[in-house]
């Protein structure tokens, strides 16, 4: 293991210990058997008609500098796991959220807190729409989420 990777592994190990004691309602760890990539399911708990009864799959990718660097977090599409509709979520699962960017990320955040932020981002949304330019972006984008400069035009959504 690279010397830097130990830093991430140590922290993720601590997170796993904490997760084994329980996660908040609506968040389930699906796969966390290594320190590079985890899968989690999240649900929106209130009765928001946009997301009621649905489960969404999140993929976390951790670099060796996690949690100094943010993890890469995307929604993953599966037969029973759609991509939630939201003005900041592209239909390919890429999320435009400032806390996941270098500027908005704080190393105090963790997997659990990111899941909770995404839960509340969905809970508070009433717009049944994708981000502007979704189609074009999804067609043209070949970059990884961390290499995309998002303009966080509206952090209230």
């Amino acid at each position: 293991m690279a010397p830097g990777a130990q830093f991430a592994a140590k922290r993720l190990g601590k997170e796993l210990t904490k997760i084994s004691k329980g996660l908040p309602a609506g968040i389930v760890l699906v796969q966390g058997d290594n320190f590079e990539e985890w899968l989690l399911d999240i649900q929106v708990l209130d009765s928001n008609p946009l997301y009621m009864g649905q489960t969404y799959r999140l993929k976390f990718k951790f670099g060796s500098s996690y949690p100094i660097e943010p993890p890469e977090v995307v929604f993953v599409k599966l037969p029973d796991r759609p991509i939630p509709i939201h003005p900041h979520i592209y239909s390919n699962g890429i999320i435009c959220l400032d806390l996941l960017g270098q500027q908005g990320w704080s190393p105090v955040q963790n997997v659990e807190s990111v899941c909770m932020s995404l839960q509340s981002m969905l809970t508070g949304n009433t717009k049944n729409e994708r981000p502007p330019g979704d189609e074009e972006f999804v067609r043209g984008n070949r970059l990884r989420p961390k290499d995309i400069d998002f303009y966080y035009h509206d952090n209230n959504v």
Partner: protein
Amino acid sequence: MDSDDDFMSAVSSEDDILPDDSDNDDLSGAEDFDFDDEPDPDLGMSKDIGRKRVAYDISFKVYQPADIEKQQDDLINEVNMILNISKEEAAILLRHFRWNKERLIEDYMDAPPQVLEAAGLAQESASLPRLEVQPGFVCDICCEEGPGLASFAIKCGHRYCVDCYRHYLSQKIKEEGEAARIQCPSDGCDLIVDARSLDLLVTPELKERYHELLNRTYVEDKDTLKWCPAPDCQNAIECGVKKKDLDKVVPTVSCLCAHRFCFGCILSDHQPAPCELVKKWLKKCADDSETANWISANTKECPKCNSTIEKNGGCNHMTCRKCKHEFCWMCMGLWSEHGTSWYSCNRFEEKSGTEARDAQAKSRVSLERYLHYYNRYANHEQSARLDKDIYTKTEKKMVQLQKESGMSWIEVQYLNSASQALQTCRQTLMWTYAFAFYLARNNLTEIFEDNQKDLEMAVEGLSEMFEKPVTELADPKLKVEIMDKTSYCNKRRIILLDDTAQNLADGRWTFNVELTGSAPASGGPSNRR
């Protein structure tokens, strides 16, 4: 002042190609392009310094690393004397105030303790940054705890272990290039990690990078200063053109390293097209690259015998090696027709109304229209690159010829001038096609197209002479022709740029897209790099 003249000719490549070079005298001694005399230089266009300046010429000044350092030192010394604080503190305060000396002095005179505190320079020794071992401390980043775990916090009290803090700072400094404005690692806390804390925490291997970045803040904090984007160039340029003026002027500056770029958007010289059109055009080209790529390819088939021909020089006059057919690379038409009907190669004839009525034809016309301009844009871009190669090759041959014919190095410099003129003019021509693509017809477009055509013909003529075999190049008669053509090309370029810049400043162009000045892209993702 001889040194000033040298400086000038090195700074402004436009000066050696001005129509009347005796005018250079007017600029001697004006090493700073009159910048200091005119804090808001009114785009430098109405300035009268003894002669009428061409409209695209703007005021700017080049600073080398030593100049930048000296300016910082001067400001630091001044604040050090006025406020009677140490130079180290003066530097920290100036960075904190984004090098706005006046505001710093004013605020400091009002309430020294508050200013010092805000900049992380509180006077009480109790608040000097230091590492601490606190009982019961748990680091929220690595989740470690344990006796003897050294930790650190800035004023806000958000405390993390030293390892995590160092890791965090190293990420910010090394990966994100931040130095003067690194925030506390805590979520939502925007307190800046002050310079003293950084000095305490930053490891020796990061120190150099950190101080280098600190020095960069001087240029980055000032709207009137920008780094020269040429790789390995350490110079900065000062220019008073503001963002809101970018729909009126294309602020082109040239560094001592000879790199010519736009002060507005940092891209290479894109006169006469305004920054916003350039942005739109480059985006369009990237989006449409699949349709357009085949056109910019280096090879084409001879229209007569279909053998593959590779373009190996900058000239558009192609002669098929196999069948000797002569044609124009741009339009594939007969070269012999280009003496009189050059128009078909430079101007796009709008298709007739009947054809346009058909929706399908319409979209084809719009694609054709785009391809027409793109083709010419890409052709000049490519030719400019090829012309450079040719010069490198020619230079070698000229060295050889010098030995054989006894011509001096000075005597062969005319080829260097020709090569530079070709590249500069092609770069301009290239952007005239992007400009023309967005240009809506009015009574001025014809003059523009004539200027474009004149420049293009001159450039193709020079390019053709330039490609002659070395033995012919040494002929004194051809040498004179090349020199004449070189200065004619430069003259045509200046006429075109002057005309377009003047009309841009006067708002007399109509574009078929909205030119909003400096509105940033609104919302949505943009791809970095």
